[in-house]
């Protein structure tokens, strides 16, 4: 017994104080992912966090400029922007020469081969492969000539026939190919910057089979030979990465912020990236404070510990050289009415009365530390179609007008109006927001009930139209307002993304016309019109455009918030001298 106790004590003491030492010899970037990674097959990468991981090993034809705002596309694997035919349907691309896939047992002798046109066409076909049911299919659904037909035909076969030629996908030579669209698709190049269209090698897909998602073989700046579902992912610099350099241009002021100090340097700028998957807020916060993470998104529960007065960094963090970044997100939160429900469909005044009863200023203070922007309509600031000066007359707290409109809607003082259930996700903050909303609506006599659901249950209720109202947030997939306006386009009604089942022929006609136009003042004007049209109709109770707060360690260089940050990490750097010096303070 005595020896057993001694052994146990020995083991315990072995663990005491054995925290890992910091590495000052290599440029290591330490990051935190707040969610589990669903794998590395680009066609299935639909969440932001998995996209961030895929972007370290895979690349697309285009990427967003790490510094320029508004977001600007720049060629990545593509040599330059494509040439587009006069009818706007055929895009001819040239890809860079000498780009190598990572070394992998999938290739002869284990040496990665050069990227060719076929790889791009193969990767696009994979997205359409009916056997794979790619999450990203929606970006190219009904866009490329012959691709839907190929998908249809192969659904009946045991295995998809990749050798079959497709009208819209033509190889011209090893480094040139053309893609023909069915109809104009101005967001097409954005689609080619998304993780879904990252380029994979056929040999790797075939070699690893069902395990392909755990063996990423891309052309990206970092390598990860095997992905295991552990809570740490370690990437190392790709030794065969092509000559790619840090940009020498940015937004005004970037130079002063030191964001151009590495201009012209070969990237990636770090030797290793270590990503720890930490789901809970406290361990994330403590890890950052122990300098075990270089970049950190402040969770709501720790906002007051990190930020004083809603704006200033807490003095203890400031003394360690930590920096605060407040970044407006391209997102919109909302309470959607099910416009299929006769209660709301024919009663615009009821929708408007409900919108006027919500004290958004108080909600902003309670739930977003007064950092969010009140949404006037569906499009967030930063995208064409948003007009700062436009104020939605129903996005304000006016109980008198709300009562008046409620009476005109046929429910004076809420009499005769049944209780309305709002469906939401089983999360504390979501429930609290609805409870705040309900408390506000009580004042005009409207009773709100909360329907708590797991995420799958909520999605099911919305797709099957079994809801009266539901609450959600929508984040941009790409920087184009079309991505938001589509949420109110009638043909996208449930089970599509228009969960409010809002239908307005005038809006639909404008949407159809605008979404085939290239970015132009004419298109922006149409977006503005649609945005302001739905603001008056109130198919949703518009909520907020949120702000994300990040903290970065003093030694992290070149960080600038990016909404579409899949490829951002290759541009980040670590100042080892500063790290060595400041680490003593942690």
């Amino acid at each position, binding site marked *: 017994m005595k020896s057993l106790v001694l052994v*146990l004590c020995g*083991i*315990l003491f*072995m*663990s*005491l*104080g*054995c*925290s*890992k030492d910091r590495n000052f010899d290599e440029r290591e970037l330490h990051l935190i992912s707040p969610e*589990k990674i*669903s*794998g590395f*097959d680009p066609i*299935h990468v*639909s*969440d932001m966090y998995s996209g961030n991981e895929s972007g370290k090993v895979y690349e697309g034809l285009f990427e967003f400029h790490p510094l320029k705002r508004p977001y600007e596309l720049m060629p990545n694997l593509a040599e330059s922007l494509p040439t587009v035919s006069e009818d706007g349907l055929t895009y001819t691309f040239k890809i860079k020469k000498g780009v190598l896939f990572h070394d992998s047992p999938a290739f002869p002798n284990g040496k990665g081969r050069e990227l060719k046109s076929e790889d791009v066409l193969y990767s696009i076909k994979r997205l359409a492969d*009916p*056997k794979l*049911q790619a*999450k990203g*299919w*929606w*970006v190219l*659904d009904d866009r490329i000539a012959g691709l839907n037909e190929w998908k249809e035909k192969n*659904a009946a076969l045991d295995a998809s026939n990749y050798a079959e030629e497709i009208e819209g996908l033509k190889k011209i030579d090893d480094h040139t190919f053309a893609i023909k669209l069915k109809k104009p698709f101005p967001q097409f190049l954005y689609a080619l910057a998304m993780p879904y269209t990252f380029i994979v090698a056929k040999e790797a897909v075939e070699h690893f089979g*069902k395990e392909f*998602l*755990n063996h990423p073989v891309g052309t990206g700046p970092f390598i990860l030979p095997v992905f*295991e*579902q*552990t*809570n*740490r992912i370690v990437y190392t610099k790709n030794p065969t990465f092509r000559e790619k350099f840090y940009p020498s241009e940015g937004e005004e002021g970037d130079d002063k912020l030191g964001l151009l100090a590495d201009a012209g340097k070969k990237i990636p700028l770090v030797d290793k990236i270590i990503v*720890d*998957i*930490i*789901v*809970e807020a*406290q*361990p994330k916060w*403590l*890890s950052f*404070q*122990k300098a*075990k993470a270089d970049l950190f998104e402040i969770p709501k529960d720790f906002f007051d510990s990190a930020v004083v007065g809603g704006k200033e960094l807490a003095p203890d963090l400031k003394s360690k050289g930590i920096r605060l970044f407040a970044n407006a997100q391209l997102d919109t939160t909302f309470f959607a009415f099910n416009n299929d429900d006769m209660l709301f469909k024919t009663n615009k005044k009821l929708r408007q009365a409900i919108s006027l009863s919500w004290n958004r200023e108080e909600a902003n203070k309670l739930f977003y530390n007064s950092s969010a922007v009140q949404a006037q309509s569906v499009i967030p600031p930063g995208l064409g179609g948003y007009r700062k000066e436009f104020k939605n007359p129903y996005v304000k707290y006016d109980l008198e007008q709300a009562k008046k409109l409620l009476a005109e809607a046929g429910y004076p003082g809420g009499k005769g109006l049944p209780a309305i259930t709002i469906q939401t996700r089983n999360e504390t903050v979501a429930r609290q927001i609805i409870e705040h909303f309900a408390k506000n609506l009580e004042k005009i006599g409207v009773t709100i009930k909360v329907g708590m659901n*797991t*995420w*799958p*249950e909520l*999605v*099911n*209720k919305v*797709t*099957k139209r079994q809801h009266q109202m539901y609450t959600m947030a*929508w984040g941009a*997939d790409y920087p184009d307002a079309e991505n938001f306006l589509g949420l109110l386009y009638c043909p996208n009604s449930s*089970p*599509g*993304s228009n969960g409010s089942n809002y239908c307005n022929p005038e809006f639909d006609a404008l949407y159809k016309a605008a979404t085939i136009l290239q970015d132009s003042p004419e298109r922006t004007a149409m977006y503005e019109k649609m945005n302001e049209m739905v603001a008056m109709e109130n198919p949703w109770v518009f909520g907020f455009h949120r702000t994300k707060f990040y903290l970065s360690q003093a030694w992290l260089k070149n960080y600038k918030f990016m909404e579409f940050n899949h490829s951002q990490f290759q541009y980040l750097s670590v100042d080892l001298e500063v790290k060595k010096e400041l680490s003593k303070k942690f």
Partner: protein
Amino acid sequence: MTKYIIRRLLYMIPVLLGVSLIIFVLFNVVSGDPTAVLLGKNATARQMADLREQLGLNKSLFSQYLDIVKSAFTFDFGYSWATKQEISQMIWQGAYPSLCLSIPAFVISTVVSLLISVFVAYYRGKGIDLFVRVCCIAGMSISALAYILFFQWFFAYKLGWFEISGFEEGFPNFISYIALPAIIWIVLSIGPDVRFFRTVILDEIYQDYVRTARSKGLSEITILLHHVLRNAMIPIITYVVIQIPSLILGALLLENFFSIPGLGGMTLNALNSSDFPVMKAMAIISSVGYIIFGLISDILYTVADPRIKFK
């Protein structure tokens, strides 16, 4: 005894059929359509229909039930819908970290609780007994979350004795990661364990045979360790052994807060992503675990009390 074991193992067949039926009703009849969640926010109706077809959700209900029965008996759970990984491999990967945490924590907490229980039973009614009982009740009254948050902040962050979170494979690497969650597990378990073990031991202490032993002049400690404890073992064995299957399932809160990539987190992820095959696999494994460990606890009764015979 062999006949008894074979018979009990054969009982597993109807139990597994019943479990399969319950799992089938829960996931295939009561639960909604998983395709919308699996395909993400931009899923189209056509894509959802295609995926339903591909996942076999359009097959007859009987045929879907047979698939579950088959996986319950063959332990071939197929592939995860969400991560596309082989489920048996996912379980194997997750079981290691879960067991690294749960086995030492469970063994230590059980042994320590038993020792404390014998100690307070020896001093029953005295101040130390009262003190331990008060500590147990006070300890049980505080939520597990409070222990986790405080211990993590104080011992890992403030004192820096342990890693804040994470996990590394291989001995002794994992010790610095699992030590703190294991200590929390032990602290959380000691309260209810001691209360249960103490009650069971005290039940025995007032039996006639104990009085007889005392009147024969045996020392109190000999009576406690050689007679009382042995007779108290049956409920203790049941209590301890039946907890073992839950060790495999992992400790959800601890795994989440300490970023241990175990089975608890895997099951929670499956729940959030409508990953029915993983949820079914975990339900089947836990059922089989409970059946097997129920049988083991029955067998252990004969060790604790030779009067027990299997019929």
